[in-house]
């Protein structure tokens, strides 16, 4: 029996000679390095973004995809990595990105007019190599246009970034990369938070009271697919038992108000009264 197995093995090896070096060699599962995305709730849930893999974030507009993307860009550019953003609809807002800590001089921004240009630019960037993060933002591209991108394109992208330190991040409205993505997250909006600065009861009773400020909004992130096994997730993520988590976005002015409030609350009682 063993001689038959050996003969069979020899036959297979001879057939695959030149195409596969050693088909029967045991290979350890690749240990994937993950890096924090800069959104604590999602980092706790997923353990971070895997390098050398395709990560897909999808959801409707206003679900927090851009906030997630910009947080990730801030995290990576601060770590002195060079990042690239392929913007299919030229929608990247620089002022909010800079205020969130993105180092713009570490970012290559590609402003495209359609999905075709975006895919070609992404392909060139992946082939160029050396980027810490390549983000393909198809959030504003009509879903039917993204749906028409064939699966082999995503597969090719996945294979191109494999065994490289590059994180390939895809943002769209519907899941398109399917099994080519190592991590798929679905985001949805839960509620929008407004704060009332006016204290007059008459003003507050109006249909649109003055002095209203946008505080932020709450979203929910759900893991749709993760290539990490449960024991691997347990090693890298805190909330590995959960499949989803809430996370909140807050506006810049709200953050600065909150900081002020925190500073005031940290002051001694007497000093607080004086203020």
């Amino acid at each position, binding site marked *: 029996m063993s001689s038959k197995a050996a003969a069979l093995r020899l036959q297979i090896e001879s057939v695959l000679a030149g195409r596969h070096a050693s088909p029967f060699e045991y290979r350890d599962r690749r240990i994937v390095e993950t890096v924090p995305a800069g959104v604590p709730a999602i980092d706790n849930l997923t353990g971070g973004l895997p390098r050398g893999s395709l990560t897909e974030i999808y959801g409707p507009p206003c679900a927090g995809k851009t906030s997630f993307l910009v947080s990730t860009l801030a995290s990576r550019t601060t770590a002195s990595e060079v990042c690239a953003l392929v913007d299919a609809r030229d929608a990247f807002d620089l002022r909010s990105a800079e205020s969130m800590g993105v180092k713009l001089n570490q970012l290559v921004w590609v402003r495209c007019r359609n999905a075709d240009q975006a895919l070609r630019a992404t392909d060139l960037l992946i082939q160029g190599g050396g980027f810490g993060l390549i983000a393909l933002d198809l*959030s504003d591209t009509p879903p039917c246009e993204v749906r028409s991108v064939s699966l082999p394109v995503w597969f090719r992208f996945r294979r191109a970034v494999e065994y490289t330190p590059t994180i390939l991040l895809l943002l769209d409205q519907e899941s398109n990369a399917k099994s080519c993505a190592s991590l798929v997250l679905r985001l949805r909006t839960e509620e929008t938070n407004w704060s009332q600065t006016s204290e007059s009861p008459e003003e507050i009773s109006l249909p649109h009271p003055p002095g209203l400020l*946008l505080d932020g909004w709450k979203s929910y992130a759900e893991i749709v697919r993760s290539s990490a096994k449960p024991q691997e997730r347990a090693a890298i993520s805190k909330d590995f038992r959960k499949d989803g988590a809430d996370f909140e976005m*807050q506006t810049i002015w709200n*953050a600065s108000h909150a900081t002020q409030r925190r500073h005031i609350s940290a002051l001694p009682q007497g000093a607080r009264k004086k203020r």
Partner: protein
Amino acid sequence: MAFASIFVPNFMVQAVVRAEPALRERALALIDGNPPLCNVVAVDEKAAQAGIECGMTKANAAQFPGVEIRPRSRPQEKSAHAALLDIGWSVSPQIEDTAEDAIVLDLSGLDHLYRSEGEIAAHLAQRSSGCGLLPNVAVASNIETAVLAARGFTGTTVIPLGKESEYLSSLPVSVLPLSEETAETLNRWGVHTCGALAGLPVLQISERLGQEGVHLHALARGAESRSPIVAEQAISFEEEMALDDAVEELDPLSFLLGRLLDQLCARLAARSLAAVAIRVHFELQPAFENAIDPRKEPALQKYLPAVYDTRIELPIPMRDSKMLLKLLRLRLQSNPPAAPIQKMALVAESVRPRAMQGGLFLPCYPEPAKLELTIARIANVVGEGNVGSPSLTDTHCPDGFQMRRFLISIDAGKFDIEKKDSFRREQRNQFFKTPASFRAFRPPVPARLELHEECPVRVMFQGMQGRVLAASGPWRISGDWWRENPWQQEEWDLEIDFLPSMGRDASANRRPDRGVYRLYYDALRQSWFVRGIYD
């Protein structure tokens, strides 16, 4: 003190062959003059064996089968001479620009770098062949002997001190700078070699040929000496090529550009320099036939530009001709010349090459040269100015930014843990939650609003209609009133609940059922626009 002389025999032919190396294997004759009166001015060895001689007319030379006939190229001769000087400067800073086809190097002080004078001569010959020239190199104790030996002996020659007369004795007198009259006189005397001339008594030569004879006698003995006239080092590197037939298509053009770049890079390498920018200058074919339309007024004629100029800035100093050719091709693809090219020139702006050592634990970053190529390729897809590094402009105007060329800073790869920690600390202090970001609509989308007591209550844009659930504003901003394009806006943050049945076709961009948008009223244009969405 020793001197080396480099002499390029048959310089006109070698200059042409340098630009077109395939001609080295063929019989070549160069013609010059005003057509149709063109005569052969130079021939290579194979053409000479075939029977072509200088002075023949072009028609006569054309009767010889298998002989390439090319016009003499002064731009290529100029480039070849510049290359010759670069070869000299690659070894010694003291160079004399003796003639178009010859230079002299002062070798004093080089004994610490080279083991022998023979090694220097071999090194010069090797450098020359790298630049596409096959010269004679001679080393001697004085300039004149070195020059005569380089003109007379093929290959490399090293003349030991005191043996100048012995070495030169076998050379013909034609290597000496003879006037026509003196040459005839020496021929009449039966003096054909330098040795024969050196054997004559100097007093009698002085009586018959004067000071010229004394000078020639000293040269023939190898006893004439003088100081070199040092040439100033050139810092620009230029290669030119004039074409017989104008080139229109990119593929043949890039073939020619590749040759020029190869020569340019070889010269840069010889001087241990690298290019930080490449300037391209094309002279275009005057296209009168295409440009002049007799039916139009002369003032309305479309005159095509006569020259094409472009400049390619490089992210790091480089001298990789293949990489430079790729960048040049991409530039010509995105911005092609308006007419066929009949003459081309490439100028390299040179600097010292960058020497940098990478670290083992540094984060990865793209290789600068490769990144430049990638960005150039992407610019071909998305358009020039749509790829690069963004930077905010110094204005309060929303969406004020400019695109810059992306350059990797020297410390791009430094992993600064302190910086990273400070970012985290800052983020923790400022944001308890994830900071909210914004997506811009470029250009802003026109909108229609219904107001109630100056507050938006209903919004319509992109075929969608929605009810305003909450509104924050107006936030008034204005600026640039002192310029031609002032702006004055009132911004609102609106939470909009879209009505489900209003014009959402499948091809349109899907909008959420509810979302927070930023709209503004343009007070100068008196209309509403959607600036973007919080996402």
